[in-house]
């Protein structure tokens, strides 16, 4: 009799410990979960809701159904903005990835002052956008900038001093170069970390077999970094597709989707409905790309 009560009490005790764990788990995560629900999930739903309304100048809203979507999709400015965004994303992703791989391979070799050089390479990534953006504006300055000094005055590749950042047709190139410079250190860092984990004996064996540097790269290095590189490409596409600060601060002439949405919603007529619609469309395009990429390239 007494034995029985003891075991049942024990069982109850064990039960309460598991329950306590459950409860504590929820308590601890609750503040974060509430913040994410209220300030990320709810706003996204609210954003979709807003996209179905049109706003008058007085800020009054009226139901518009899919009018905003139809309006945006048939807007030539939207299509050109989509084109600019694609070009920006493709070229910056290619640039950061290639430069990142190259730098990682070079800095993985032994040479004097390697530690210092490795720190220096991180500087562009570390520095605040707002401060380096002005340095780059000066680099591209038509009168005093070093870019025109080299490519116009010294080399003569440009026939006249052009205002690259100021001209809407060329500003995107300045934004691309700036973005590659700013972000390749991240790619480099990740790939270097992966390279350091590669088994050295693989290279020794290849050397014994008489493989050239290129063959070693193709047969050992590339398969080893394939996964991390394809993950980095995906991340880079996501980040650069949503990129705002780096582009807008360099030049508001680069009308990528984020900048277009920002200008639409917060300048001029402050059209929240169309702005929200743009944000939804941008998100859907991104989700579509992610699903495609995960299936085809990462083969999950």
């Amino acid at each position, binding site marked *: 009799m007494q034995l029985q009560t003891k075991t049942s009490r024990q069982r109850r005790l064990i039960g309460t410990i*598991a329950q306590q764990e*459950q409860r504590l*788990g*929820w308590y*601890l*995560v609750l*503040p*974060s979960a509430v*913040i*994410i629900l209220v*300030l*990320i999930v709810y*706003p*996204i739903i609210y*954003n979709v809701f*807003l996209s179905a309304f049109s706003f008058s100048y007085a800020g009054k809203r009226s139901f518009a159904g899919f009018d905003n979507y139809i309006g945006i999709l048939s807007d030539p400015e939207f299509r050109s903005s989509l084109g600019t965004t694609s070009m920006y994303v493709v070229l910056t992703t290619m640039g950061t990835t290639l430069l990142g791989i190259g*730098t990682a391979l*070079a*800095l993985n*070799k032994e040479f004097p002052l390697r530690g210092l*050089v490795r720190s*220096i390479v*991180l*500087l*562009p990534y*570390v*520095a*605040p*956008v*707002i*401060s*380096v953006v*002005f*340095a*780059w504006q*000066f680099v591209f300055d038509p*009168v*005093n900038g070093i870019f025109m000094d080299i490519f116009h005055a010294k080399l003569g590749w440009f026939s006249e001093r052009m205002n690259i950042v100021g001209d809407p047709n060329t500003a995107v190139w300045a934004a691309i170069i700036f973005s590659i*410079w700013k972000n390749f*250190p991240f790619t480099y*860092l*990740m790939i270097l*970390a992966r390279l350091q984990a590669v088994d050295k004996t693989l290279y020794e064996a290849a050397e014994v077999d008489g493989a050239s540097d290129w063959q070693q790269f193709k047969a050992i290095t590339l398969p080893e970094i394939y996964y991390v590189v394809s993950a980095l490409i995906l*991340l880079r596409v*996501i*980040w650069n597709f*949503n*990129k*705002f*600060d780096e582009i807008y*601060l360099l030049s508001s002439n680069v009308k990528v*989707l984020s900048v277009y*949405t*920002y200008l639409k*919603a*917060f300048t001029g007529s402050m059209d929240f409905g169309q*702005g*929200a619609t743009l*944000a939804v469309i*941008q998100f859907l395009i991104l989700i579509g790309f992610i699903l495609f990429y995960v299936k085809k390239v990462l083969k999950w």
Partner: protein
Amino acid sequence: MVKKRNFTKSALFFLLILAIVFFCLFPFAQMLSLSLKYSWDWGNPSWIPSKVNVEAYKELLNIGSSLKQVPESVRQLLEESPDLTSAQKQAILSKYQSTGDVFPFLRYFANSLLVAFLASFISVCLAILGAYSFSRLAFRGRSIIQRGVLFVYMFGGILLLIPLYRIFAASGLLATPAGTIASLVIIYVVQTLPVSLYMLGNYFRTIPYSIEEAAMIEGLSRFKVIIRIIIPLSISAIITVFIYCFMIAWNEYMFASIFLKTYKGLYTLPIGLKTLFVSKNAIWDRIMAASMLTAVPVMILFMTIQKNLTGGLAAGGVKE
């Protein structure tokens, strides 16, 4: 023959390293040099100023804004008019001395510091609890929340900008300066929380569970375990995450530009600098000096945590 080939090879390699270093550093060199140049020197492509000019730094940091900026005639006039009280004289003088109208760098710096510090502190505190819960406690719904956090990475700020602006405007917080600062802090907490949760969660999993078990057998509660064991053991990771969040908040422009639009006195550095750049007070040396002063604290912070960060970024995945 072999030796010669090796020599050219290592010379080429050396050149490559030099090119990489140059590519990374030249905008900084540009920035530093321009901040020290006089305006007549801007067109000079050399990075070494013909004559060093530190006026821009002095002006931004409010050093030596002494009587010398007040025109001679005004000073004479003040001395010759005895019926003015000293307070009135001071008011007139300060009009000439104040650089605040041009670019109140120190105030913007303080605003940025306040917002970034509060946001990253709150974010890290919440993330320590949340991440501990993820990595140690079994509870229903854990994997959903964990995946939800990952999913949040995919959203750019632009998707949240319009709804959050409307929500905060409707709540009335944006009507007062204090409320505006508070909403900006909340926004930055939201933006940094997923990163913090993810990075700290990954770190906590590397701490052996047996240490905690031993402590709990000794009679410590879960909560005390977090405070006495988990936090001290992962302090370097916590500092790293804190600085990372600080950086995000320090650099943020988009939300700040919308929320602070009507409060010039509350501007953070990014929006202040952008405003300076498009204003008529834009002078390259002033802009570059302000850029240097904005960049230097952050870069020093980053360099101090560089070792931890490399591991943390690799392990945690990062949001920009």
